[in-house]
């Protein structure tokens, strides 16, 4: 368990008990924390939430990984001791909060009282963040958000250049294809996460193909705000979280687009629809926001795209927490997948009850030092995947995608992963007029 993370170890050296006490008490006196205390008073210590958590199930039912135990060992102790805890204690609390809970909210569906464990864990992350006790890699990502507003230190020219380059590339497949930048009054503003221009640029070309074929009036912003990911939300840096969500929405509002469409990413969706607006004072997003799954669903339903090839191999579906438990998109997701695949083998359990991938919630962004811990904590997903016998797992979320890739690698499962858009552009009919 002794993983060296400079983010923790440097903070450990600097922290004093006084500072810890002060920060904990200032956070715990705030409104959110008051609500958390109510929850703690309601908890009957029945342990029913244990079976809900993939970390508990994956770690041979180690009782310390039960959601209620994680909260007791962190927030519970802080409250009991009124913030008088040691730096070592904080280090362990940070490990639990950043690595052993991704805030997937599954446990809240198994606790008979719906106790909000995930929000409590996020409260601990906030405390850790104020104390500077944050895993180095996710802190670096947050720093990138602070400096560049995107997640991966992408320079402003790199973004525009990549979009143009993908536009040119995709024009080789579809005639007259455009990625209109900064188009005022467009029906849709499409937004991506920084790993797309950085390492998966093909996904931008793919969406351009789809938008062109489906004749969607769309645009992307050339200025900062194009990245919808938000690791600050997970690292506990709420000020930066709010700042980048504001910038993100500002782009859409300035252009007066009809709605925002979010690429296949779950946490980004969450940040733009819930956490960001809430911190900024909006009750919901200021403009309608849909996830890519909803866009695909609408386009298929309205017959704006036609799938001509269907996969026959056994295919399974990972339900991303933030768009299924967090948005109820599982039925639409099924509709899209069934349009693309003939042989769908469901995971058990599925829909809102599916297990998290253990990459989301910022965990994968805590980087290499924690990879083994993360993979250990997600054995249950490996078992679940194996049982489907599928050769392809559809992952309509960047975190799930990476998470599942790591799982099938580590547990030697004979399976590939794919975003929906990759299948759609391959299996979609390109109308006569658009062929090259």
């Amino acid at each position: 368990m002794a993983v060296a993370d400079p983010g923790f170890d440097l903070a450990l050296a600097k922290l004093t008990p006084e500072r810890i006490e002060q920060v904990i008490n200032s956070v715990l006196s705030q409104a959110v924390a008051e609500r958390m205390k109510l929850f703690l008073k309601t908890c009957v210590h029945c342990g029913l939430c244990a079976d809900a958590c993939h970390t508990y199930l994956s770690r041979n039912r180690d009782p310390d990984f039960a959601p209620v135990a994680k909260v007791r060992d962190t927030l519970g102790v802080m409250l009991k001791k009124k913030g008088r805890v040691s730096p070592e204690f904080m280090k362990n609390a940070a490990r639990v909060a950043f690595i052993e809970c991704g805030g997937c909210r599954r446990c809240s569906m198994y606790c008979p009282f719906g106790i909000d464990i995930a929000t409590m864990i996020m409260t601990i992350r906030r405390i850790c963040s104020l104390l500077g006790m944050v895993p180095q890699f996710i802190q670096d990502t947050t720093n990138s958000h602070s400096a560049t507003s995107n997640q991966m230190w992408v320079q402003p020219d790199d973004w525009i250049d990549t979009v143009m380059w993908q536009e040119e590339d995709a024009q080789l497949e579809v005639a007259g294809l455009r990625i209109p930048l900064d188009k005022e009054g467009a029906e849709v503003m499409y937004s991506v996460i920084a790993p797309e221009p950085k390492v998966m640029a093909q996904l931008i070309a793919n969406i351009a193909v789809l938008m062109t074929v489906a004749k969607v009036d769309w645009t992307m912003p050339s200025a900062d705000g194009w990245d919808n990911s938000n690791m600050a939300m997970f690292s506990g840096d709420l000020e930066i979280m709010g700042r980048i969500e504001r910038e993100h929405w500002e782009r859409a509002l300035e252009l007066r687009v009809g709605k925002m469409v979010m690429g296949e990413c779950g946490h980004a969706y969450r940040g733009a629809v819930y956490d960001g607006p809430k911190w900024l004072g909006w009750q919901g997003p200021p403009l309608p926001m849909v996830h890519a799954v909803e866009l695909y669903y609408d386009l298929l339903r309205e017959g704006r795209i036609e799938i001509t090839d269907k996969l026959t191999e056994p295919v399974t579906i990972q339900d991303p927490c933030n768009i299924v438990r967090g948005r109820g998109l599982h039925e639409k997701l099924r509709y899209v997948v069934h349009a693309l695949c003939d042989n769908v083998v469901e995971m058990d359990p599925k829909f809102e009850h599916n297990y998290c991938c253990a990459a989301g919630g910022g965990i994968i962004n805590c980087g290499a030092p924690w990879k083994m811990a993360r993979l250990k904590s997600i054995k249950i997903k490996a078992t679940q995947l194996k049982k489907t016998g599928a050769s392809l797992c559809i992952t309509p979320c960047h975190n799930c995608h990476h998470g599942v890739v790591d799982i099938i690698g580590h547990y030697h499962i004979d399976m590939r992963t794919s975003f929906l858009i990759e299948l759609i552009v391959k299996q979609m009919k390109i109308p006569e007029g658009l062929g090259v």
Partner: protein
Amino acid sequence: MSTMVNFVSGPLVWIALVTFVVGTVVRIVLMIRTIKLDKTVLPAMTVKHSLRSIFFWTLPYGSRSMRTRPFFSGLSYLFHLCLLALPLTVMGHAVLWQQAWGIRWWSLPSGVADVMTAVVIFAGGIFLLRRIMSPEVRNVNTWRDYVILVIVLLPFVTGFIAYHQWLDYRTIIILHMVSGAVWLMAIPFTWLQHMFMFFFSRAYMGSEFGAVRNARDW
């Protein structure tokens, strides 16, 4: 001894009832105040999703969580049913109600009440065992939790003994009344407050899932 009986069946009952009612009201008022501190909570709550969540979580086997452990859920359901029904409908209580306030009350046939009491005690025993045996539960339980469970069960155990006239009836009745009073008073001050918090926390989560996130929480 009779002053003792007078006290526990008179003033103590009052003290217990008043503590229970006032304690509960104060708890609820404080909770609503706390919730209002965070301006984002109430606007996000809807009656529809609150009731939906409460419905599925009070319906027997209404949630997947319950279905994954049929025995425990069934037992808990019976436990609560009996536990809530008994104090109001036990014949012995009805007699007392009538003596004190002249209220006529419907009461359970004593045989049925007796079986229900046995169910509560049995279920409580299983719960106690589970708390001790199950690692994930034991891990988060302290002496407080065991004491609370004992507090919950004592009136049923003593009532049961009294009904069957085992042991010294007077002593047992006094014990019963004292434990009954403790039972009532413990509710607002321990996790037994889940009795009313259940409805609020479910309403909150039901709205968070349903109204805000368009998903089911059961």
